[in-house]
């Protein structure tokens, strides 16, 4: 049971990431490098934040916790445009390289795969540091409950929360990339908004028995991000198809 539980929690938290990695990322070395880079960026951001907050630990009052969440999420959201901006620089280099190697330039779906890889790197790093390192004891016998949540083991809560954040990080990166590319403000704001929403919803867990409400709400956020991301990309792919068929038709007519 012990081993099964540990593996179960791990798969719950990281199973989707693993599936995405194997099916989309693993075969493309450049994407793997993007995942590693963005995981490193996320880790550095976490270390900087914890260097700042280290002095205040342990945090007793809840307004400090709110402040901590606000600073952390804002800082990480500041990194997203920086990540996109450096990617844009790199994209120029890559396209030049493509030309030299006589290969096609990066297409829309390839850019989206890069965004996915970048988001997945954030998400995996998040899951690894917040959840996987916590899960190690779950491979042993017994389990662990915290006082404020007597309904579910801590490990289960951590696994589900980190699954939602993995999804939010991964797919909101795609939404944000689309937003930056097209200059649409609503898309650009979407990613930080969902990140803030999910982080504040996890505050519900502080209340007695709050995890029964907080965890599902965070999961709903994650589902919302996936659906929205799917809608955006679907619409954009549709647009491109129409554009291509229009231009084909124009060619034929002329």
């Amino acid at each position, binding site marked *: 049971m012990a081993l099964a539980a540990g593996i179960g929690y791990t798969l719950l938290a990281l199973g989707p990431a693993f599936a995405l990695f194997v099916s989309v990322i693993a075969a493309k070395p450049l994407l793997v490098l993007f995942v*590693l880079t963005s995981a490193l960026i996320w880790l550095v951001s976490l270390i900087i934040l914890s260097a700042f907050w280290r002095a205040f630990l342990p945090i007793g009052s809840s307004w400090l916790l709110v402040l901590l969440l606000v600073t952390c999420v804002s800082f990480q959201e500041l990194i997203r445009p920086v990540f996109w901006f450096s990617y844009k620089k790199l994209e120029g280099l890559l396209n030049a390289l493509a030309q030299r190697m006589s290969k096609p330039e990066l297409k829309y779906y390839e850019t989206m795969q890069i965004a996915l890889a970048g988001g997945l790197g954030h998400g995996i790093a998040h899951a690894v540091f917040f959840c996987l390192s916590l899960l190690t004891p779950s491979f042993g016998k017994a389990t662990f409950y915290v006082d404020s949540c007597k309904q579910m083991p801590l490990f289960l809560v951590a696994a589900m929360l980190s699954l939602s954040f993995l999804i939010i990080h991964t797919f909101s990166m795609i939404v944000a990339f689309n937003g930056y590319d097209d200059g649409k403000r609503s898309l650009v704001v979407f990613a930080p908004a969902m990140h803030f929403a999910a*982080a504040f919803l996890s505050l519900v867990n502080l209340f007695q028995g709050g995890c029964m409400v907080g965890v599902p709400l965070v999961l709903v956020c994650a589902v919302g991000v996936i659906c929205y991301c799917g809608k955006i990309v679907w619409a954009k792919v549709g647009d491109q198809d129409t554009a291509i068929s229009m231009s084909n038709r124009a060619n034929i007519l002329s």
Partner: protein
Amino acid sequence: MDGRTGLLESVGAEIMGIVMPVSTCMLLVVLLVRCLTPHGSDVSVRSVATLVYTEKESDSTSQKLEGALLNSLALVGVVTFITFMLVLLYYYRCTKFIKYYICFSAAFMLSTMGGTVVFQLIQTLSIPLDIVSFLIFILNFTVVGALAIFMSNAMPILITQFYLVMIGMLAAFWFTMLPEWTTWMTLVAMAVYDLFAVLAPGGPLNLLVELVVSRDEEFPALIYETRPVARPDSDSNAGASNDNQHRRRWRSQNVRRTSASEDAGPATELQPQTISSGGRNRDLRDLMDEERQVNRDVHEDNSEGRENNSNGSLLHENIGSDDESIPLVSRESMPSVQVTSRSGNQGTHTEQHNITMQRDDDDDDHEGLNISALSATGSLRLGLGDFVFYSLLVGRAAMYDLTTVYACYLAIIAGLGATLILLAVARRALPALPISVTLGIIFYFLTRLLMEPLVIGLSTTLLIF
């Protein structure tokens, strides 16, 4: 959308070729450490790395620091001495001796250390196994391993790579048994040593590289070579069968490569190698055609007076291990270096320029140089010692907590990436340890002192962001 021809698939493949085995080696060491020494039990082990001082829990911090410093200096002294001995041996052309020595030490490591590790695993996991099967298994493992390293040309590259990773893993695992302070000081000392040995004008590795370059031969050492990825232009029709073909082509180009080396060496360097072949758009369906064409290209190139087939190559290191030890514990490493030059196919001549790597493709222009290390035109080599010390760092981190392992892993890979980028810029043999080890150590302590309290505090209150 032919999946094989996109940019995403072709760029960075050889970086992954290095990152993958390094990651595998680290993963295995972490698993071994977690499995066999769950609480970081510092069994005091006598070995070369603890010549001067044996750490005890009760010693004061300054005593530990001083002792660890002396230990690491002693280790570096031994390593330097052995490296110079190797340079000397090589200078007097005792290549055979070096080769046999490396082969012997590899076999010795695989049998004794490998045997011990397997034995401990069997005990820990209580696997029922009779002694006869066990001995046969170890014997097979050793013999195949020694052959794979000794006659690497005759073996599939995967087997040689597997054994190199194994040797790196075993060496790193034994190093993790060093006391904590000594481990950290050793890492720092080896990184500094690596820096000087490779880059300083009189550094042993640098001397060796120059010697090898001037002789235009290869030096036997334990070096991990990536399989070069299929060249982008020639793989448009790639399929499974092509893979094989590319591989074979590559091997034939490598006729002279030797890699053997020793156990844990520290190592050293990473070097870019371009494969020379004139290869531009070739679409070869079979090996023969390909080789013929390569030759043709080569001749053409030569006639143009270009030195194409050369590769500068580079480096490595080796390690000497010393076997003086009694129970297998002492391992040392020595870095030595080696250089290899690779010759073009069938002996057409190679030239090397001092360690710079030269690019061979005629059709690339200069600005292409940087990228060439990143795009799929060559293979990279990494000394086994680098494997060992990376894994040692991660293995030591695993004794504290898994969080530090992930942080160290990312830091080391980032350092490796930075080194590879420098490699493309500098185009000479570079030490692979300093950047990675520095980053790894910094991240270890940052994670342990700063990040973990915050993360544990937050996640146990079920807050997350």
